[in-house]
């Protein structure tokens, strides 16, 4: 078969960002998968609640302190997160490096509070179905933070290496920021479920 050239694409960029980047779309699809997982966890929570004669089952509602601190931290982290994303778009290497260090910090500190969240639930995972679902939800979200933290740490190392100053890497930073936003936003309904629904 003979080729009939009708188009020249040599002037196109070597890497697109945002909606022009396959990685961005993959990040969105992964968020859809995980969002579905969290949605199901919430659905299971309410399903079990609808069956139980009283809710929470055999335990006082969770203590608020650790969870509230973590939530404030996560919400606050949105600001530097958006800044990092903006710097990455403008390819400001130095600022991105600093920003990623800050975001690593914002990944680690919530985990410290998370350690105190589990005992604050006032129930063990094997006590009853209520304990099982709240531990599972908290565990799922902890995994979520952990994976993004590892991602951020590796990316930080990468930006400090010789591979750092590269459009592709800046795109990765933006995708990572997008994903962190999702980690924070996904937490809010979970937080409401865990801490405030039992108080209704």
């Amino acid at each position, binding site marked *: 078969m003979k080729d009939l050239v009708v188009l020249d694409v040599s002037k196109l960029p070597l890497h697109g960002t945002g909606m022009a980047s396959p990685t961005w779309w993959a990040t969105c699809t992964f968020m859809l998968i995980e969002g579905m997982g969290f949605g199901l966890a919430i659905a299971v929570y309410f399903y079990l609640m609808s069956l139980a004669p009283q809710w929470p089952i055999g335990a006082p509602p969770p203590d608020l302190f650790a969870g509230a601190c973590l939530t404030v931290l996560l919400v606050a982290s949105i600001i530097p997160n958006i800044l990092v994303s903006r710097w990455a778009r403008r390819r400001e290497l130095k600022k991105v490096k600093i920003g990623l260090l800050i975001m690593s910090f914002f990944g680690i500190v919530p985990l410290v509070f998370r350690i105190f969240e589990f005992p604050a639930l006032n129930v063990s995972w094997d006590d009853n179905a209520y304990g099982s679902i709240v531990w599972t939800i908290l565990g799922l979200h902890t995994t979520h933070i952990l994976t993004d933290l590892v991602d951020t740490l*590796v990316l930080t190392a990468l930006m400090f290496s010789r591979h750092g100053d590269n459009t592709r890497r800046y795109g990765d930073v933006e995708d990572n920021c997008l994903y962190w936003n999702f980690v924070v936003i996904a937490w809010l309904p979970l937080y409401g479920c865990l801490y405030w629904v039992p108080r209704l």
Partner: protein
Amino acid sequence: MQEEQSGPPMDTDLDDRELESRLAKTWSTRPGFWGKIACVDHKVVARRYIFTAFVFLMLGGLLSLAMRLQLSQPEARFISPDRYNQIFTMHGTNMMFLFAVPVMEAMAAYLVPLMVGTRNIAFPRLNAFSYWIFLIGGLLLWLAFALDAAPDVGWFAYVPLSGPQYSPGKRTDLWAQMITFTELSALAVAVEVVVTVFKQRAPGMSLDRIPVLVWAMLVMSFLVILAMPAIMFGSSTLILDRLVGTQFYNPAEGGDALLWQHLFWFFGHPEVYIVFLPAVGMVSTILPAFVGRPLYGYMLLVMALITTGILSFGLWVHHMFTVGLPRLGESFFTASSMAIAVPAGIQIFCWLATLWAGKPVYKTPLLFILGFIFTFVMGGMTGVMVASVPFDTQVHDTYFVVAHFHYVLIGGAVFPLIAAIYYWFPKMTGRMMSERLGRWSFWLIFIGFHLTFFPMHILGLWGMPRRVYTYQPELPWASLNLFVSLSSLILASGFLIFFIDAIKSWRSGPPAGANPWNASTLEWATSSPPPPYNFRRIPVVSARDPFSPGNDELTVATGLRTDRREVLVTTIVEALPEARESSATDSVWPFWAAIATSIMLIWSIFSPWAVVWGSIPIAVALIGWFWPKGEAEDES
């Protein structure tokens, strides 16, 4: 300006032969064992996937013959009840999780990049990872079966039978973890297919020019993405209940047995469409090539596909009509299940219209498609029957349902799949399959299938429940069961001939040429089998049929580099070129990541700490996978 002159090598001013040799150098897989392990060519990975899935089909078929042996006479003692329960659980699990879904995903991984005119699937390393995970998951299950430790609680694993109290040992954990393996691999392929279809279509292939098969695979991928999390959540919580004593499914502690059924079927019903929608795409692609006219009702078909995909999420309770939910709520699912007959009908009518207007050429693929229409419509009709709540209370969990879903799954998906194998075999291997053996296998499979499964409708109405390892002589089921068992041998011989044909043709079939069927989708615009880079130059599309078979010219784009793996990224709606993106090179890291993931998953059946310690090697493997190696593909 200066940079551009001394810039990287481009394909712009090269003659075809020189371009091909340079592309081959860039895209080829290194020889040797590790080269094969590291290979990320979507065609190679998908071929392995398809081959493995068909091996599982064969094994699953042997299991069904064992079941038919046991059921051929009342109170037979060929197989013990324990082994029989393992066998039917393995048959269902194997066919759904290790054959039907993977083979459709694999067909997508093979065909979608070719049909949208790109050089590799999006995220080729993820694709390789997905295959290794699938392979290890399948081996795990079959190893368990060989060791007499296979799951024995049915492919649906209802609690509390599958719970810690009534299913001690590791059998059910193996089942639940096998789910994790296959879902992981399915989700990975789904993401790749979605991104490939969204971003890597040939320039000009706007939404209304996407081939129906690609649409079908796209909808299938979204079903995977939205349905599989439910079963992963289910199987993980089941393992937690069994391993660390959570109480999700224990009614004594606030859990609920029906919760499992909701989660399972929220996945389980879309699952049927995950298997069936690709078949719709295959039929819509193959049919036009054998009636010599374009498909009738492209737009209707695509709309029917998507509507079916949406409605498939509102059918799950029709597996639960007898559990005691309010009849009114159940009837909402009757409504949706009945309404889905409308898009299904539309698909059938479009194919009939295509047949009507065309001139059929009776080659093996067309035979299987005609057999499909004949059979699938029957399965659809019994589907309408079980969608009715009162009707279902009589046939639920009987052989009627066994007959129904084999009509839908074998008639509706395996017939088109075999048609697809006959149709795309020349593309995949460069060789034709035998027309003579093809006819034999069609008639044996078609006749054997109906003789085997039609009587099961009657057995079900006569009161024979499913999943029984035997039945008593005073019930009037013996002669029909013997008939079914004998007929299953005819069906099996048909499949045997198909397998023989495939193996023989692979080794010594006549060469196929680029476009043996005079088809007009893009995969036929390149050689058979396609070179590692798929297309010498990226095609440019300006109509629904990207090229006409008679015409020897293909409109293409130039301006891609030859020294690195480069694909064209286009916009989502109009497919206008946006960027020249690099495509990942071969790497052994996906393989190591799969090994590390498998160790963690299998270990976690025995100890929850595996999740902690097992994650470290996974993280190491993933860093190895993604860390830039300073290749040309890293440039931007």
